[in-house]
């Protein structure tokens, strides 16, 4: 099923991508080509095969509940464009 221009715009908005109309058109073509490959897979008879969420056959991998030292705050904040009083600073968020 081909993807519409509106769907391309919607997905771009969710991914915070700003696209002009030429890019939207180009991406529609590329995405449809990709989806075409999935259509091939859809054609395979998979009856009787359990759906799987992972390719590896591992399960129940856990860590013990015991704290280890965290990283120094100066290191954690080092890549941030703006910090204040040990906080990452971002543009004002209006919640309510």
């Amino acid at each position, binding site marked *: 099923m081909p993807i519409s221009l509106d769907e391309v715009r919607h997905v771009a908005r969710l991914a915070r991508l700003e696209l002009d109309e030429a890019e939207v058109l180009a991406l529609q073509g590329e995405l449809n080509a990709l989806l075409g490959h999935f259509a091939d897979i859809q054609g395979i008879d998979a009856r009787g095969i359990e759906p799987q969420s*992972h390719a590896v056959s591992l*399960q129940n991998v856990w*860590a013990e509940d015991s*704290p280890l030292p965290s990283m120094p705050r100066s290191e954690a904040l080092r890549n941030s464009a703006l910090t204040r009083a*040990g906080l990452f600073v971002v543009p*004002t968020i209006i919640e309510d």
Partner: protein
Amino acid sequence: MPSYLASIGMEVHAELDTRSKMFCRCPVAFGGEPNTRVCPVCLGLPGSLPVPNRAATEMVLRTALALNCTIATNSVFHRKNYFYPDLPKGYQVSQYGETNPIGYAGWIDIPKADGSIKRVRIRRVHLEEDTGKLMHLPAGGSGVDFNRSGVPLMEIVTDFPPDIESAEEAKEYLVQLRSTLLYLGVCDGKMEEGSLRCEPNISVRPEGSAEYGTKTELKNLNSFRSVQLGVRYEIERQIAALGRGERIRQETRGWHEGREESFPMRTKEEENDYRYFPDPDLVPMAFDEAMRERARTSLPELPLAKARRYAEQSGLSAQDCALLTADQAWAEFFEQAVALGAPPKPVCNWMNSDFAKRLNEDGIGWKASKITPAHLVDLVKLIESDAISGKTAKEVFAESFESGEMPSAVVLAKGLVQISDRDQIEAAVREAIEANPASVAKYKSGQTGVAGFFVGQVMRATGGQANPGLVQEAVKAALEKV
């Protein structure tokens, strides 16, 4: 105006009481200097890999069993994708689907005001991670603290159509659920610190209507009281709006604690589209019978079951039993006191009156106080054997609470033993009568109320230590004879 029925769904988030975070080993704590409990995993830095916390997983498993859920045979983590500055990875690790959450299709019983029980069905109990915290900066901008980012979070959601039909039931559900989580030792239950958060959704519909009304969701409720007030306010607001012919808008509303009203919160412009998919970094979980059995056998007796047992064994009222069992340590105190041979009713009365009052004043639990079950048993026995009066007992308790001395030691040291010796009391009564001929005359002329005066005289003469019941008897008998 037609009458309306309310339907309330409850979404509860409980921060799990683990020592380290959900997918990394950063310590979990409340407060502290911002961004001091962070690492590449909970900051979402590229190349970091999460490993789930075993204890957190077992806590959700135990909770799901305690809430009578079906346990998923195979349970995976999903990525819930959205952008927000408190979410460093651009997605929250959560669990999606009907039969994928660790527990689903369960229920909890809640006691109703009339003493009956209501069953509230639970749709899902799943495991996810908390976000960071945003704070407004006075100088402009918002500050982000990721200490809370990645703290294990359990989500418990009631089923649809909702079973809860009033603000009181919503509160009772939360009380019962919180108490259960405390018994299980999986959450500290501190609503004011945000470790237990409740977001009810509320709708109303005209009686007889099969279709459910448009629902609104309430946020910022940080106490049982605000949950009850908020839900009640929202029900009344919606009914009033429908009465005026308005439509209810589907929205998220905040609760203003001071004004006791809800207000519409800024809604996101776009429809939520989280594009859930299985997290490729986290492998599936499978709970075999051995693991379930281990979790099942680790479950404590839960509050409602305990309350029922107390009612059956000791004949206490449902309300008394609910008070005794709301907190596990409190219930333990009661059981220890009864095991030491004290009758349940007076123990219960002392616990829920003077003792609870003093603990509340000091803001502590009994284990941090100087009163042990043995203290209360000693006190109750002093009263039961008429060694001290109820009034004296209150003084003795206060003294024991302060000093930690046994009540019988306090009574001895202060000479508070009640005089129950009849000869001694009768002698005091005779003295009082001989000393007050005028009052005796009044009594004879029909003013029988003057008997109270003689009781007072005798109590004063004995320093308040005479058994008041015996004094009354003796005064009455003596006055009838003169």
